[in-house]
């Protein structure tokens, strides 16, 4: 097989792939432009709020209890706090006891009761997705983090740069000379001994109060580090081995930056994927695993630590959480949100061995959401929605299964941007451009197949090729049809024998098998010797 024949087998699929990619992008761009134009120049979006049902006094009472904040005093007493008015920083509240007896009403800031303060979730900094973005290959090259070490005169004396591939920091002095490596074990001078931190998840930072040298809380899949570049110290705060970190909250940990509240202990709370709840205390570093009942869910758990006592608050409910799959949401709403649910909040004290001691519990009936909210499952009567529905009728039918496979329910999860850029792009395209008006969509697909059939019938060269192109058009809809047309459109003539249309890609007529006529041999037709009809 020579090069000429070999390239035929590669170039044909290559041409199909190339043309399909271009037409898919062209169709997406045109769809986006139409939807965008309607959004820009169309009538303003209509927000028609469904009429909300009028509540009875009993219902109002139930809703009032539901909406109140439930706070605990250090002795376990529960208070219900109702916000009466909120304007900017001014917040007027009513404080009730568990029997709904009014204890106090005034501005929130002057409340005489000091409630337990719960550790706050660690947020901000740079997460996995942001780190990936920095690593993106652009014309300005990828970037990474560097952490400056700053002296008393506010001069950068060292720079520690994170190397994402090697997964450790390399330190340079102000002249650019290497001064050491910071990996999972410690600061070292030899590159060979530098160990990676582990799969990066998040880093947050704070600084020393009197100058700007930063400290890092470095989170990997199963480890938590504290890195102090000024003191050249890498400390493993927590190593979960075969478990993974799910959630982190902290209290007072950034003592170097802020004046800490002396009543509170300094700690980090970690909930793991396998359901463990671990506290890491500071000065000295101590770890405590809390023996939490298996049925508790991580999201409903909060921790407060005073100097002498540790408390855990658990919020629970009989209600089922909304399903991940968006197409099950309506059924879930009908099943669960038309009923009342028993809901509770419990306070436990965490003993030194990690066991729990029950302190107090407050239980109330959460009213059914349908009492107060009317949710319309009908599609909105808006020009944008209608345009989108009609425009996406020409999208590929593959978008729907791809969206279900990759997307799940991004409206609920909001996490697809934290995945790879490819994942985010796939989810966004299939979410925004998948067909929603299925009858119209199927009609367009059938129409495309019919037109391709009509066009290809006279031009068919083999049955396999003909069927392939029909399936191709069915799979990619308009983009598939345009690809088919771009690669298969040839001139047709009428067969001299049967009078039917035929293409010029094959020698015989697909209808009557008559060969293409050759020109009559003439005196000067020397180049056709051996190919004439005679």
């Amino acid at each position, binding site marked *: 097989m020579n*090069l*000429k024949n070999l*390239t*035929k087998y*590669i*170039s044909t699929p*290559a*041409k199909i*792939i*190339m*043309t399909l*990619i*271009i037409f898919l*992008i062209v169709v997406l761009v045109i769809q986006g432009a139409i939807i965008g134009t309607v959004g820009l120049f169309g009538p303003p979006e209509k927000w028609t709020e469904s009429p909300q049902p009028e509540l009875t006094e009993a219902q109002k009472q139930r809703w009032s209890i539901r909406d109140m904040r439930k706070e605990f005093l250090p002795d376990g007493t529960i208070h219900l706090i109702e916000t009466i008015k909120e304007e900017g920083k001014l917040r007027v509240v009513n404080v009730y006891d568990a029997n709904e007896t009014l204890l106090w009403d005034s501005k929130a800031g002057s409340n005489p009761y000091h409630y337990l303060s719960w550790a706050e979730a660690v947020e*901000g*900094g*740079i997460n996995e997705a942001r780190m990936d973005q*920095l*690593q*993106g*290959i*652009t*014309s*300005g*090259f*990828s*970037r*990474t*983090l*560097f*952490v*400056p070490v*700053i002296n008393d005169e*506010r*001069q*950068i*004396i060292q*720079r520690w*740069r994170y*190397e994402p*591939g090697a997964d450790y920091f390399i330190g*340079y002095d*102000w*002249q*650019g*000379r*290497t001064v050491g490596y910071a990996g999972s074990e410690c600061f070292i001078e030899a590159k060979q001994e530098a160990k990676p931190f582990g799969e990066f998840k998040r*880093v*947050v*930072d*704070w*600084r020393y109060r009197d100058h*700007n040298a*930063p400290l890092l809380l470095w989170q990997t899949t199963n480890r938590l580090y504290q890195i102090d570049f000024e003191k050249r110290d890498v400390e493993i705060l927590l190593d979960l081995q075969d478990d993974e970190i799910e959630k982190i909250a902290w209290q007072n940990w950034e003592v170097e*930056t802020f004046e800490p509240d002396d009543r509170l202990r300094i700690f980090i709370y970690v909930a793991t994927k396998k359901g463990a709840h671990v506290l890491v205390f500071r000065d000295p570093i101590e770890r405590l695993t809390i023996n939490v009942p298996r049925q508790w869910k991580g999201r409903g758990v909060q921790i407060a630590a005073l100097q002498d006592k540790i408390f855990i608050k658990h919020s629970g409910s009989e209600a089922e959480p909304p399903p991940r799959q968006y197409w099950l949401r309506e059924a879930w709403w009908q099943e669960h949100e038309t009923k009342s649910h028993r809901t509770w909040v419990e306070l436990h004290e965490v003993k030194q061995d990690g066991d729990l001691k029950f302190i107090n519990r407050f239980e109330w009936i959460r009213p059914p959401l349908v009492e107060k909210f009317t949710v319309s499952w009908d599609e909105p009567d808006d020009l944008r929605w209608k345009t989108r529905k009609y425009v996406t009728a020409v999208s590929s039918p593959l978008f729907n299964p791809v969206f279900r496979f990759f997307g799940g329910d991004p409206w609920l999860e909001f996490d697809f941007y934290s995945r*790879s*850029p*490819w994942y985010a*792009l796939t989810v966004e395209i299939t979410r925004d451009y998948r067909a929603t008006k299925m009858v119209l969509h199927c009609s367009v697909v059938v129409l495309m197949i019919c037109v391709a059939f009509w066009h290809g019938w006279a031009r068919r060269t083999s049955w396999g090729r003909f069927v392939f192109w029909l399936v191709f058009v069915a799979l990619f809809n308009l983009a598939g049809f345009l690809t088919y047309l*771009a690669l298969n459109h040839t001139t047709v003539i009428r067969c001299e024998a049967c009078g039917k249309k035929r293409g010029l890609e094959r020698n015989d007529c697909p209808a009557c098998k008559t060969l293409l006529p050759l020109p009559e041999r003439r005196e000067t037709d020397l180049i056709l010797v051996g190919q004439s009809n005679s």
Partner: protein
Amino acid sequence: MRFLALLKKELREALPWLLLAAFILAFCSAIFIGEYTRWRRDFDEPATMSPRSPVRMDTFREELQLRDIGTLLLYTSCGLGLVLAVRQFLVPSFLKTWAFTIHRSTSRTTILLGKFTAAIIALILSCGIIWTLFFWYASKPGLFPMPLRQRTFAEGWIIITFGLVMYFGTVLSALSTARWYTTKMFGLAFAGCTFMLLLLQVSLALCLVMIIISLVILVSQIIHTFLNREF
């Protein structure tokens, strides 16, 4: 020997563009690096921390000393790829000299190989060598606050390779017998699509795989078209 003769001819024709690209890249890189070192000598030695607090991690992002050079490298390699493809494949169509080239006593494969080799050599000489020399110079301790990363070097070469994708895209468009308003420009459009998809990449290996796939898609069509079409 015939291949070498063809290669010399192609390189001779590419020489002005090759030198121009090398000059632009070297001259502008020297200006950028000179500006940066002067700025750093005046304001940043040893670097003074800006008065704002580094408490937010965003301020720790690496300085982009090379941003301008990366953009320049992209434009130069793409521009050179485009110009070489036009010079090698479109100009003979306008001048109607294809018949002379094709009917020499060399195969079409050799002619095509000669043109491709010349384009690759031109890109390596004008962009690759300059980039490598620049990187070697810039990696010397003391020039930048931190030595450049090896990954940056590899990324520079990926940008140069993208110039090759642009070259092959243009060649395919130039060789296509379709009308310009139908599928003639699809080669170039595909090179553009490849660039957009490259911007989604984080991994260098994936980038390389994507470029190789693009090159296979383009080169296979070019060979098939060149060996089969009539000039």
